[in-house]
């Protein structure tokens, strides 16, 4: 029996430090492990004893690409615990800030990190030699997303303007006006991007995912909603722990999240799209159809199209929010700390980002639990790897390696922040 081990010791073009181990015996994939060896960062431990006021600024440091997700879920949990609801224009501004994050994160991934896979380039720099226009458009889109973060968040990386109850400072209508001009152009760029990625060749793979995303009665859920799946889950975010669990696995410093009754599930753009297609505006649904997408997309390689589509949606939604904006009288609603538990959940670019905190009477954090999207997707990534590698198990190693790496990048995994080089070692029995 031929035994083959394919190892990718350092995954490139992902955010973070991870590796891939694939064990093939007699042409059958025995195990497919996404190894995450980035050291644990102990956020949940060192949040204990800190004030709820500090919370959004501390958790923003978890990620330089999606800090808004952590801020939004955390302030929502504080407000939930203290019995306050942030509504009206403050809620709209939070959604606008989140649109900025979706735009910058999605544009970065689609153009700079993922597209080279489909066109056969080792990286975006080589790709830019032939596809300079697309790379320029991707950078311009990212810049627009960053501009929203800078205006509403105070700066584009690790924003500092979000607080429990609202913001420290809110913009005037006049301050938002230049953003609208930029966003109109960004929307056109995003539409071009959808059309461009739709022309790629996609490997055939249909997976039977359990999609999990938030769902809201009136909008494409980003900052608020119930947790639903395409099986039978429809729960309040406070009940996350009754349906889902996290497990330690030996090969990863990140926990694996599972549906208790079933196993792996998928969060992120494909899940959001499948569960909230009817909440997208007609314009975006039309664009989806033009790009060859039905109401559900189950081919993980086509996630790049869904991600581009969400970029266009975020531009359109940001424009709508700016058009409807009236400066609120106060930048934040007052909060009265009290002892209790609060839950928060929002749709990070990569999927649901779930938080739970227990607070002391004065608002000091007693315990914290944070479930990021990538840990939820890990079991699903590994199932994808097995499914992708099985039919090509007898192909040369570099063919297997390339497709497996591409499969991992389908998820835009945010292992945390890094990725520089890649080593492959093959062991044959």
């Amino acid at each position, binding site marked *: 029996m031929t035994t083959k081990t394919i190892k990718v010791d350092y995954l490139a073009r992902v955010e973070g430090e991870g590796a891939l181990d694939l064990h093939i015996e007699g042409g059958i994939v025995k195990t497919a492990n996404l190894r995450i060896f980035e050291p644990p960062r102990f956020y949940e431990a060192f949040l204990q004893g800190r004030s709820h006021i500090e919370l959004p600024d501390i958790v923003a440091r978890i990620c330089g690409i999606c800090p808004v997700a952590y801020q939004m879920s955390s302030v929502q949990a504080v407000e939930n615990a203290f019995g306050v609801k942030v509504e009206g224009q403050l809620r709209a501004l939070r959604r606008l800030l989140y649109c900025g994050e979706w735009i910058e994160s999605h544009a*970065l991934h689609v153009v*700079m990190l993922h597209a080279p896979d489909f066109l056969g380039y080792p990286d975006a720099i080589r790709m830019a*030699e032939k596809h300079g226009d697309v790379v320029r458009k991707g950078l311009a889109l990212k810049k627009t997303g*960053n501009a929203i973060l800078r205006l509403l968040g105070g700066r584009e990386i690790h924003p500092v303007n979000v607080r429990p109850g609202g913001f420290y400072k809110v913009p005037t209508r006049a301050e938002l006006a230049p953003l609208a001009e930029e966003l109109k152009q960004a929307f056109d760029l995003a539409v071009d991007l959808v059309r461009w990625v739709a022309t790629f060749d996609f490997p055939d793979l249909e997976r039977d995912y359990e999609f999990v995303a938030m769902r809201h009665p009136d909008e494409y859920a980003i900052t608020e909603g119930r947790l639903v799946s395409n099986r039978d889950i429809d729960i309040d975010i406070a009940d996350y722990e009754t349906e889902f669990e996290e497990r330690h696995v030996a090969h990863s410093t990140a926990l694996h999240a599972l549906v208790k009754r079933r196993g792996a599930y998928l969060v992120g753009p494909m899940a959001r799209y499948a569960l909230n297609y009817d909440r997208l505006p007609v314009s975006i649904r039309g664009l989806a159809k033009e790009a060859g997408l039905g109401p559900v997309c189950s081919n993980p390689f086509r996630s790049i199209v869904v991600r581009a589509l969400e970029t266009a949606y975020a531009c359109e939604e940001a424009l709508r929010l700016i058009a409807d904006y009236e400066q609120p009288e106060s930048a934040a609603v007052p909060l009265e700390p009290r002892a209790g538990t609060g839950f928060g959940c929002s749709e990070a670019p990569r999927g649901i980002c779930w938080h739970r905190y227990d607070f002391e009477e004065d608002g000091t954090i007693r315990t914290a639990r944070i479930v990021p999207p990538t840990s939820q997707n890990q079991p699903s990534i590994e199932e994808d790897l097995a499914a992708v590698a099985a039919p090509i198990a007898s192909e040369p190693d570099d063919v297997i390696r390339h497709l497996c790496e591409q499969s991992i990048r389908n998820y835009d995994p945010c292992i945390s922040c890094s990725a520089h080089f890649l080593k492959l070692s093959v062991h044959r029995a």
Partner: protein
Amino acid sequence: MRPLLVLCLGNPDRGDDGFGPAVAEVLDGTLPPDVTLMARSGDMLTMLEDWAGFDALICVDAAGGGDRPGRIHRIDLAEEDLPRDMAFLSSHAFGLGEAIALARTLDLAPADIVVYAVEGQRFDGGSEMTPPVAAAIGPVAERITAEVARLQEAANHA
């Protein structure tokens, strides 16, 4: 005067990676008023936005891969490429080398780029800057002041 940017890169909370920001602190308020000084950490792709509209760029960064911590390298990209064995560190997907390569491919790079790199030794989160790297802060700041004058002078005679 030609638009000139001095860009100091690094994360002050990662040991020797704090070299760039430390040089920026020394230079703050000392450069001619038409020269822009920026300190940046994080995603290097945002640098492409930072240097848009500038005709000349001086970059300061710490680099791994060397064997003499504190050794200063001056690399004029008009004359040579960034050494391949010099690792400009970034905790993100794109570092200085990639950002410059991409900018040049897309014709977004300033005409003149001079990189001052100091060889670093320790880049762990929360660690202190090592003494040989800290000792290079003053000399590099002085050399950048002279470099700014040289680039402006060259522009005046162009």
